């Protein structure tokens, strides 16, 4: 193989770019879907009727107790059986990550909702708000704001975890680097390069989280 040869990076950039795009799309969709679903799970857990609350708790505990790779593989096998047709690795990954991350975001949102004082909800009710209005207008915005750094940190972990879709052959950044490495017979350079990309993105986001934390420390 010889010494490092980075000239192969240039022709494979467009290919790696498509991989990165999928990784980012997957992250963004799983984040938005996961936060929405996770918030609903948290609300069900905290203020739903008993069966719903238990079901929510069980779902969250289940997802958090199984290694992600196994969930990815299982969903890949099971989703086609439920839908009745193959969905493809990419769609399967999107569904899996949304469902899986919802469990983690749900725990964050639950802590966030509990971080808002009871008096705030009382004030909302005293003004005549319904449960839904009170949550939407008073409690959740504050819960979300209080938890923003933690939500972002979870999203950074999510972004790194998306590399696991490689297990079902979805073409994310890692898979693209893998393929390009094989094509040019330069796997080391390709893996290194993709590691740098992961690092740069995650490191910048972490820096952003630190800045946010500082700002909120001042605000409170």
């Amino acid at each position: 193989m010889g010494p490092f040869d980075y000239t192969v990076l240039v022709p494979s950039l467009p290919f790696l770019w498509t991989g990165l795009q999928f990784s980012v799309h997957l992250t963004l969709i799983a984040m938005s879907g996961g936060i929405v679903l996770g918030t609903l799970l948290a609300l069900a857990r905290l203020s739903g009727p008993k069966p719903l609350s238990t079901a929510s708790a069980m779902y969250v505990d289940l997802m958090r107790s199984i290694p992600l790779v196994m969930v990815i593989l299982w969903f890949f096998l099971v989703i086609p059986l439920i839908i009745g047709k193959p969905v493809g690795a990419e769609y399967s990954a999107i569904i899996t990550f949304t469902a899986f991350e919802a469990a983690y975001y749900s725990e964050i949102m639950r802590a966030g909702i509990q971080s808002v004082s009871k008096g705030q909800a009382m004030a909302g009710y005293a003004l005549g708000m319904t449960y839904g209005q009170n949550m939407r207008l008073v409690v959740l915005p504050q819960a979300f704001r209080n938890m923003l750094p933690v939500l972002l940190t979870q999203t950074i972990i999510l972004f790194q975890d998306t590399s696991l879709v490689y297990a079902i052959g979805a073409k994310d950044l890692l898979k693209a680097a893998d393929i390009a490495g094989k094509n040019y017979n330069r796997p080391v350079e390709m893996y290194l390069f993709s590691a740098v990309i992961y690092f740069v993105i995650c490191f910048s986001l972490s820096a952003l989280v630190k800045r946010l934390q500082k700002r909120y420390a001042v605000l409170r």
Partner: protein
Amino acid sequence: MAMIEIRDVNKWFGRFHVLVDCTSAVDKGEVVVVCGPSGSGKSTLIKCVNGLEPFQKGEIHVNGISVGTAGTDLPKLRSHVGMVFQHFELFPHMTVIENLTIAQEKVLGRGRDAARDKGLSLLDRVGLTEFADKHPGQLSGGQQQRVAIARALAMDPICMLFDEPTSALDPEMIGEVLAVMQDLARDGMTMMVVTHEMGFARNVAHRVIFMDQGRILEDATKEEFFGTPRSERAQTFLSKILSH
């Protein structure tokens, strides 16, 4: 007819009997002060009035509407019963004017401009117009509590409940809040006020209710109450409070 009617109300927290056979009434335009030692159930009673706390026995009627009955539209009832809390409970993620308009718009369905006009005129009434676009965190405690009163008034309440509105305030800010409340009373607002400010009770209240261990021990006109409280507990309580 009484604006607030409380009849034989009993409430338990688990096995703890927090309200015992409470009976009283607040007439339209009347100002009633509720006092008593810590833990006597004052906050619990006042929260039962607008259904923020459920109770197990007895009846409460507000403007003829039964609070404890299953079919009652509690949000609708609460929308015209103002409430002011010890810790203000302004919404910290909204500006002052948004605090005053949000429930007008979302609960009463008022238009944006109408709600804003109403909010601004009430801010003017409590002397805080220039703070409209600030956030609650930028205001002093006394200012926040005045905003909280304005927020309640924005809903055009038929009566107002206050739960120790000045006890979280620095001494120099108590006066400004009491002044706003005195103003309200003078305008004929029906008010039920949990407070230990006996000066306010003397100047503004019509009646005083004294509670201890979940029971209403005294329910008298202020002249009677400050003249010769009948129960020993109330006498002890008053001498303690008035001595500092």
